[in-house]
């Protein structure tokens, strides 16, 4: 699915911009109405926090081209500093609870300045390796300083404490809905701030450093300094996400600093798409969905996520946001209707193949991990028995059948797609020639 057309840009005109941001605000305002249970509300809160964390990660990856394996350090340290600040408030500090995320933010900034000095000593691949090392360093150090990190049990606090006028009026953050709206406000403000950042000189030079660090030096910029500043900006917002976590969960444990968490930010931000500003927003939804919802349905969720990730890296490195934009462009040029049948065909056989694959994986898990609870299981309501060879044969057969069907439709799809791309390229050329 390659194209020589100009890459997609999401460039709404000014009027459209106001509409988009207003719609964003309204959606955030009204989302809780769609949440039918406290579980759903919790999901919304987690997603909001993850969105800030993923967008802050994309400042590094998408904007500046810096692949970090240690982002959880900044969110995690933000949480720890915030939780201590919360306890200080409970002990009498005259700081309102709703400023705690900002405390986390400044903690993130401070650690970004400290650790970023070391990590940005080198660029490119060495930088990525160093972030992994520093991430391990901080995680291991957490267990060495129980005074600050609370050892195995972590540090606890309570968000309903504190004094102040708003607190007296009932804004205690006891009810989850109050926490949601705090998260929503921070999300809106942080999104706006990070978006505005992309349109500033520093933001644009970060793009230049991403595209061609060497040339950036020759146009007068110390690329090391640019990368250092970007790390600090990114850590600031990461710290805000960490501070919100402290409020939301009222606890801070050392697993917040673990490398797996950093990997999660990387994985899901990439899945959402690093080339568009709203990509990480999609990524955060996928993150929480996989972590909280998918994990309830299957023990193999990490395997599925990993495989989806591999497929995306090879076939759609722009992520889901890029796929969305590609299809929207099709709509704009009137080419989407032709895609209906190929998409339908791929979807149908894809789902069949997916069932077969899931059946194999789930049976393997049943066999290996849950052997104690018997060998029966259901995959999408269809019963199987991991101890019976018949089940295995069915699963493999379905997988193969689905795979073949998928491949047939994929080839049809590829043909229709490339034909459409040619027609779109023609249309764009005509439009350009008309400008002169």
């Amino acid at each position, binding site marked *: 699915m390659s194209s020589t057309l100009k890459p997609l840009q999401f460039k709404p005109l000014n009027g459209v911009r106001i509409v988009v941001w207003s719609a964003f605000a309204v959606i955030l305002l009204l989302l809780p109405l769609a949440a039918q249970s406290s579980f759903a509300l919790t999901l919304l809160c987690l997603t909001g926090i993850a969105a800030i964390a993923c967008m802050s990660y994309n400042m590094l990856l998408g904007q500046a081209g810096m692949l970090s394996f240690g982002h959880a350090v900044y969110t995690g340290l933000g949480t720890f500093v915030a939780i201590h600040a919360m306890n200080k408030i409970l002990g009498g500090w005259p700081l309102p609870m709703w400023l705690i995320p900002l405390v986390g933010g400044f903690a993130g900034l401070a650690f970004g300045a400290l650790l970023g000095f070391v990590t940005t000593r080198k660029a490119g691949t060495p930088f990525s390796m160093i972030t992994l090392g520093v991430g391990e360093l901080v995680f291991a150090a957490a267990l060495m300083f129980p005074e600050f990190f609370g050892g195995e049990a972590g540090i606890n606090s309570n968000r309903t404490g504190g004094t102040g006028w708003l607190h007296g009026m009932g804004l205690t953050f006891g009810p989850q809905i109050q926490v949601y709206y705090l998260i929503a406000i921070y999300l809106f403000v942080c999104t706006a701030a990070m978006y505005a950042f992309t349109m500033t000189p520093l933001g644009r030079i970060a793009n230049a450093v991403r595209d061609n660090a060497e040339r950036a030096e020759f146009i007068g910029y110390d690329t090391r300094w640019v990368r250092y500043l970007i790390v600090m900006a990114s850590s600031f917002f990461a710290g805000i996400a960490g501070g919100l976590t402290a409020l939301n969960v009222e606890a801070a444990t050392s697993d917040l600093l673990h490398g797996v968490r950093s990997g999660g930010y990387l994985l899901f931000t990439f899945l959402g798409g690093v080339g568009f500003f709203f990509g990480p927003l999609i990524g955060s939804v996928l993150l929480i969905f996989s972590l909280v919802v998918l994990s309830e349905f299957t023990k193999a969720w990490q395997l599925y996520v990993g495989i989806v990730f591999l497929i995306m890296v090879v076939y759609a490195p722009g992520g889901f946001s890029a796929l969305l934009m590609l299809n929207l462009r099709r709509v704009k040029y009137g080419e989407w209707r032709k895609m209906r049948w190929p998409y339908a065909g791929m979807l149908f056989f894809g789902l069949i193949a997916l069932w077969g694959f899931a059946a194999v994986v789930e049976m393997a898990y049943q066999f290996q991990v849950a052997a104690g609870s018997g060998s029966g299981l259901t995959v999408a309501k269809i019963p199987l028995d991991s101890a019976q060879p018949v089940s295995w044969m069915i699963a493999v057969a379905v997988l193969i059948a689905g795979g073949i069907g998928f491949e047939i439709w994929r080839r049809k799809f590829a043909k229709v797609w490339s034909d459409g791309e040619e027609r779109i390229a023609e249309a764009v050329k005509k439009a350009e020639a008309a400008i*002169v």
Partner: protein
Amino acid sequence: MSAYALELSNVTKSFGKTAIIRGVNLAVNKGERVAVIGPNGAGKSTLFNLISGRFEPTSGSIKLHGNDIIGKRPYEISRRGLARSFQITNIFSRLSVFENLRCASLYSSGQKYSFWKPLSKLDELNDRTEALMASIELKRRRDVPASLLTYSEQRALEVGITIAGGGDVILLDEPTAGMSHSETDRFVHLIRKVTVGKTLLTVEHDMGVVFGLADRIAVLVYGEVIAFDTPDKVRADPKVQEAYLGAVLDAEGAH
């Protein structure tokens, strides 16, 4: 303050045991246009890399407006007013033409690392970029990502990025490389237009370009400058004829 825009004294450069530049002396006056010619492997690109700070000389001194620039990083040298283009196009591939030029103008416009003002509100910067874009004749490709331009459009952008910073000493490394005859003529005209009043050093192979553009020609052979004089004197120099020009001149039919 020295009268020379650029002064190289006994500059040498070796990579391991291989000596590429074996002692170059060159003094370029302000506002002068110098063409650097020489056979392949003579060290022309290496010389540019030394002057612009990409590599450090093994010995010798390089002075820009009388100030020593050895050991300075490329960005420091760029800020002092020396800009260079690359033989192999070195642009910001995912940014548009306009953004490429705007980024190149950013530091010298005083913005540096600021992040509290949006780019769209920086009128002076944007006007300057628009003017630059018009002068290199890429106005109608304003929003096209650089990677999608044609080859000669990219070469024009390459020159545009180089002069965007407002530097007064410009190094162009084979700007017309890979261009057809007609494209080259147009391009030389463009270069002359946009480098008025600046000190220009160009590495070139096309003799037509060289003799048409240059005030003086430096001939680099095996890492040494064997002649540095006006075009006519260089053409008549027997050393040059022996080392380099002879066959080429006959073929072109001297201008």
